[in-house]
């Protein structure tokens, strides 16, 4: 017994020794980004504002040291500009299930970052604070594009948040695998699939030549349905063939059995059974692991957006010059790309002062549409930190209606560019030249729609004999029941 206790005591003291060593490791990585921060104004903005804000947009403590140092730098400036505001870092990985109890229990962070799928739900459920007045005070309400007013507001015109950045869905490419499969042009660029048909064919070549998956397809939970909607649009499931529509009486109707919707599902089915280019574990692959697959060279292509280029590169270890971002391949019915984004929203008990202080912080980190010198310095610091970590520095998809601000964002991206822009050219061209039409998510209960469609995909890629039309019509029935319960019969 004594021996045992001594053993445990030694172990415990070892642990403590190890912690004591920690600060030295973390502190040693001074960053180039922090030098950029010196350009930010240190003048007091509001000395009277007194409150505490908890910032859910803080990086997690597992983030690269450079990023954490950057935020510590932002915090120091915040203390100069708002001396009586206490900033509490509170990294918060938003999911609905985490957020709800915290919001109801009063422990949610002042500001957090839900995806564009959730603002309307959160507003309807009374789970976020009205920050219209604070936004007005900063004079940024008029810079909201109308679609964001709709997304982040209620029927009374009150606004509950602000956009952080947008994304457009495209495709991530692991160039290493394209090289191994011989799918390269004479300029040393990857031959990118322009259509869904080419995607299937290239994927097959990659599978044959390298043995790796041509396409990683996250088909767990709701992700599969989310990607399917984009494929279905490109097969023509829009307009009168849309996956959901309102009939003459205003009732919402599910429509999964139109010819394009079925054809799109047949296509996905063929990727598994005819071309066999999907990763083996598609039904349990989620968004995060799909990026790991691509980054570590287990898959050559991944339907993903411009806001997640850090995951396969800095996260997965893929060098920035072996990574490309291309437009979403076109289908027989057209070329659409899903657009969405992430926003900032506020805990339901947020006071006006807290909202103002938080917006003050967001201005420092360059998230508000101002192009003044100090904000540009903050954005520079962010870009420098990204470059240091090996993340492609790209021009952001504009979230604000402010030409000056957008121009500044572009400039900074160019200044810190660490990539061969030819690998991104088609993607960014497609946003402006009209070759791809941007389209938001399906309007009502998108998550539930995705869930039902994911079920269909899971059935089709796990059972060769499954019937596409039958699976779709069953899902349609289920979703219709859901729409009736939640909307039509209310």
């Amino acid at each position, binding site marked *: 017994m004594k021996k*045992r206790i001594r*053993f*445990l005591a030694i*172990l415990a003291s070892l*642990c*403590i020794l*190890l*912690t004591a*060593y*920690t600060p030295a*490791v*973390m502190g040693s990585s001074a960053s180039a980004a922090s030098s950029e921060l010196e350009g930010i104004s240190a003048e007091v903005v509001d000395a009277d504002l007194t409150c505490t804000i908890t910032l859910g947009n803080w990086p*997690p*403590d*597992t983030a690269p040291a450079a990023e954490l140092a950057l935020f510590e730098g932002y915090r120091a400036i915040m203390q100069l500009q708002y001396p009586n505001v206490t900033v509490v870092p*509170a*990294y*918060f*990985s938003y*999911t609905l299930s*985490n957020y*709800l*109890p*915290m919001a*109801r*229990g*009063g*422990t949610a962070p002042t500001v957090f970052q839900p995806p564009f799928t959730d603002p309307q739900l959160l507003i309807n459920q009374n789970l976020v604070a009205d920050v219209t007045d604070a936004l007005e005070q900063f004079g940024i309400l008029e810079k909201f594009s109308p679609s964001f007013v709709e997304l982040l507001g209620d029927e009374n015109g009150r606004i509950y948040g602000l956009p952080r950045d947008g994304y457009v869905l495209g495709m991530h490419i692991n160039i290493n695998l394209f090289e191994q499969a011989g799918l390269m042009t004479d300029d040393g660029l990857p031959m990118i699939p322009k259509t869904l048909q080419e995607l299937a064919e290239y994927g097959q070549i990659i599978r044959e030549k390298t043995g790796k998956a041509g396409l990683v397809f996250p088909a767990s939970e709701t992700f599969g349905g989310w990607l399917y909607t984009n494929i279905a649009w490109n097969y023509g499931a829009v307009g009168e063939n849309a996956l959901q529509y309102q009939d003459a009486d205003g009732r919402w109707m599910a429509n999964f059995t139109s010819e394009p919707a079925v054809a799109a599902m047949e296509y996905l089915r063929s990727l598994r059974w005819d071309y066999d280019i999907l990763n083996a574990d598609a039904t349990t692959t989620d*968004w*995060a*692991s799909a990026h*790991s*697959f691509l*980054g*570590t*060279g*287990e898959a050559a292509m991944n339907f993903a957006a411009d806001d997640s280029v*850090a*995951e396969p590169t800095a*996260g*997965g*270890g893929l060098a920035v010059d072996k990574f490309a971002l291309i437009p979403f391949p076109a289908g027989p019915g057209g070329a659409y790309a899903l657009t969405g984004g992430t926003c900032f929203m506020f805990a339901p008990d947020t006071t006006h002062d807290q909202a103002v202080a938080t917006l003050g912080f967001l201005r420092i980190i360059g998230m508000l549409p101002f192009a003044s010198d100090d904000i540009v310095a903050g954005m520079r610091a962010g870009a420098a930190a990204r470059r240091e970590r090996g993340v492609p520095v790209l021009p952001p998809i504009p979230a604000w209606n402010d030409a000056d601000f957008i121009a500044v964002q572009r400039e900074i991206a160019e200044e810190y560019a660490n990539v061969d822009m030819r690998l991104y050219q088609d993607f960014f061209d497609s946003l402006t030249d009209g070759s791809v039409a941007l389209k938001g998510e399906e309007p009502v209960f998108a998550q539930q729609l995705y869930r039902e469609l994911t079920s269909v995909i899971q059935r089709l890629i796990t059972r060769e004999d499954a019937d596409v039309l039958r699976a779709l019509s069953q899902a349609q029935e289920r979703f219709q029941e859901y729409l009736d319960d939640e909307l039509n019969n209310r």
Partner: protein
Amino acid sequence: MKRTGIIRDFDKSTVSVKIGLTVVYLICLVIVLISLFPVFWVSMAGFKDLKEFMSSIAILPAAFDFSRYFKTWTQLNIVQNYLNSLYAILGSVFCALIFNGLLAYGLAILKPRGHKILQNLVMFSLLIPATISLVPLFMNIQNLNLGGFFTPLWLAAGASAFYVILFRQFFQSLPSSLIEAGRIDGCSQLQTFFRIVLPLSKPICVVVAIFAINGAWSDFLLPYLVLGQGRWQTVMVRLFVFSTQQTINYDDLMRAVVFSMIPPIILFFAFQKQLTENIVTVGIKG
């Protein structure tokens, strides 16, 4: 010599029985292998980096690089989390023993009028899925302003139907003469519990304590809500938050898993004799 079990010395003469015993040992080895292999595997996986983890089909890592473990260890601030888990455990064990013990003492020995109803209510509690109650429970905790510290987690361990039932069964098997003797010596009911019943119930106390330690170490959902991500977060809360992070690397996750397993394994091997023996004692009585 084999004097226990179904197969005995007198069976050993035949060849088929000898083969049978060999098979028994082989099966035992397989059981050990299956039980321990996943732990071994994940410790090995922790030495790999993401690329190797995602592509190598070898069980053993290419190199035993402890710096990777060290990096995750410092990044996740595991020591602080270990200490927090320790606080959670100490209070939980105390509450689990005292409150459930007292309640079971009332149900099994004191038996005041109406105790049957209470007993049925406690039994019924075993059938309720705890997850749905989570949100109302958390609201109630917040309304009483108990959030942010371990208090609700400790107290929650004092309301476990399972522990009450274990205690009650054990108390019922205690010889009533001893309890009578205490009463005659002038012990009050409460004194009887602490001076006579508890000392006689060491095996069940050890078992409940171990379950409570295990529970307090493993639980993450209520602790996550109650403690948040602040300075009190426990190891499993850390692992839970980490595993739901959007930008997560699987190699780091595997190392976090290893860290969450090390203390229970060390504790278990340090005290395994007490544990298995007491469970055996309790098992016979139950």
